[in-house]
């Protein structure tokens, strides 16, 4: 596929973004029935007459899901509808056994909000069009055909465990003016949204498991024009990095077509992780007519003002505000804060500080040694088998002089290897600094005896040579000696003063 280089594309066209994000709520039961919502359960074990659409079964809305949706709306600075309804979205895919999905149409629960995101130290306001509540669909597996995709398949098999899990859809207004930052803005928005969901505790937002999914809309208009171009909607974007790549790829693809005098087709496209590009899905040319109408099996939702006010008052501190506060408390630079944010280390550092460690030490361990180890084992900081309390204990042992940094790293290694708490690792591996003057003195005597020539040099004034002896002491003590104290003692024993 021929594309136009990103810089050239941006020189000629201005991108307009739009993002639709689906978030599966982490309720215990489904949206309209009492089935469990556990991810990865055996097929069709979390289904009942309601979510299988058996005749006569009726839905009843899950109050916790309604409450979570209102909280999301409030966190995104939305107005909350005083009265709204669910709507039937009729269609013929078998991923919903009812022949329709219960969704919301022209009466979303939350609307007209915004989310501020930071890109390279600049704040970009993303306007939110609506936040509505619907039910997730079942999972189809397509059998036959070359690609495992729906096109060309012989038939499909469907697991309805996911059908009916509460799903919140968050739709932005078109976002113009992001220019060459468009890919980063899209990623920053998705990142911030994910953190808000975590802060609210409404979803586990695991993109790889599909509990958060992003659809990316991109259109281009020629520079100097104010008329928006035709947009495409890219689906199957399953990571934050892919959000950024999908935007970039669509800009490059569309720019090439437009520059050649071609037309963009309004269509759904699929993102491919391996190539970082998109391919066409279903064309939207045949207008989708879902024949929406108010859901007759459910009564309207009219959130009580006092309820909404209470939910608003109980919102947790939001991630951006919290990052600003922590940055001030920790006294770190924008750059360092950004690095911690990118590494998903902020909560870990915060918890480590809460467990008693100085902020600088907490940051040093998480962003240094632990980041390196996470990287080596291709995992995330949060998934390392070590807790903030462990790190706090290690910094305490260093501060009290029981450990130096080198020994501390060995302690961390032991904890990561499953050898127990830091104290247990210190005890088992015998890692404590030798604070026993007698023991240290004996080691030094041994080293001096073995290096008489060096000792003579030092006596004759070549104090710099003491380094070699300190090294010898460290080696003899297997790193457990306090190097500074060893140096003092050596010089004392040789009767030399600095």
């Amino acid at each position, binding site marked *: 596929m021929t594309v136009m280089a990103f810089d050239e594309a941006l020189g000629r066209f201005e991108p307009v973004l739009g993002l639709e994000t689906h978030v599966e709520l982490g309720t215990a*039961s489904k949206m309209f029935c009492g089935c469990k919502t556990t991810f990865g359960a055996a097929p*069709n074990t979390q289904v009942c007459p309601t979510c299988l659409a058996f005749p006569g079964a009726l839905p009843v809305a899950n109050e916790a899901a309604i409450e979570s949706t209102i909280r999301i709306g409030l966190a995104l600075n939305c107005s909350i509808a005083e009265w709204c309804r669910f709507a039937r979205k009729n269609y013929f895919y078998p991923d919903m056994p009812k022949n329709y999905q219960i969704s919301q149409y022209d009466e979303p629960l939350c609307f007209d909000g915004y989310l501020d995101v930071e890109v390279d130290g600049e704040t970009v306001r993303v306007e939110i069009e609506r936040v509505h509540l619907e039910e997730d669909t079942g999972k189809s597996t397509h059998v036959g055909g070359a690609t495992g995709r729906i096109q060309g398949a012989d038939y499909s*098999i469907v697991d309805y465990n996911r059908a009916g899990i509460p799903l919140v859809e968050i739709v932005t207004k078109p976002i113009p003016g992001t220019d060459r930052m468009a890919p980063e803005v899209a990623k920053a928005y998705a990142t911030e949204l994910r953190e808000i969901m975590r802060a609210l505790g409404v979803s586990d937002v695991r993109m790889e498991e599909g509990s958060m999914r992003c659809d990316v809309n991109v259109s281009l208009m020629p520079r100097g024009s104010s008329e928006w171009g035709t947009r495409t909607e890219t689906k199957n974007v399953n990571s934050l990095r892919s959000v950024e790549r999908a935007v970039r790829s669509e800009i490059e693809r569309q720019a090439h077509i437009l520059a050649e005098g071609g037309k963009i087709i309004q269509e759904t496209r699929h993102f491919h992780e391996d190539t970082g590009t998109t391919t066409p899905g279903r064309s939207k040319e045949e207008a989708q007519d879902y*024949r929406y109408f108010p859901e007759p099996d459910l009564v309207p939702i009219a959130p009580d003002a006092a309820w909404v006010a209470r939910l608003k008052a109980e919102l947790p501190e939001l991630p951006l505000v919290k990052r600003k506060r922590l940055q001030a408390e920790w006294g770190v630079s924008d750059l360092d804060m950004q690095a911690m944010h990118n590494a998903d280390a902020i909560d870990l550092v915060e918890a480590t500080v809460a467990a008693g460690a100085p902020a600088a030490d907490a940051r040093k361990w998480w962003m240094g040694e632990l980041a390196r180890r996470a990287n080596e084992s291709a995992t995330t900081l949060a998934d390392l088998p070590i807790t903030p309390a462990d790190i706090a204990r290690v910094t305490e042992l260093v501060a009290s002089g029981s450990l130096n940094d080198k020994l501390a790293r060995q302690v961390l290694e032991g904890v990561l290897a499953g050898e127990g708490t830091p104290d247990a690792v210190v005890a088992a591996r015998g890692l404590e600094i030798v604070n026993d003057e007698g023991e240290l003195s004996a080691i030094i005597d041994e080293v001096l005896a073995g290096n008489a020539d060096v000792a003579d040099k030092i006596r004759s004034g070549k104090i710099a040579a003491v380094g070699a002896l300190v090294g010898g002491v460290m080696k003899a003590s297997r790193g457990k000696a306090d190097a500074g104290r060893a140096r003092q003692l050596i010089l004392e024993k040789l009767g030399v003063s600095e």
Partner: protein
Amino acid sequence: MSAITRDEVAHLARLSRMALSDDELDHYATQLDAIIEAVAKVAEVAAEDVPPSSHALPLTNVFRADEVRQSLTPEQALAGAPAVEDDRFRVPRILGEEA
């Protein structure tokens, strides 16, 4: 005077996955017209002070607590399925060749 056109019936038929002949399109256009006319009589009764309603009962906020209840077993769930494979509902090809 027919308010419903043949084209509209054809559109509805396609959305409903129904194959209708030309004769049937005309036939149903007339019938649908009559049905809509009949239903429209409701509008004559509804005065300004009667808001449109989507539900028979004047209720709001009927919720259930977020509590898990017993699901069916896969055997029960799939008992009435025309075709089953790997504990999943087996369904015919979703998209035609042209898609």
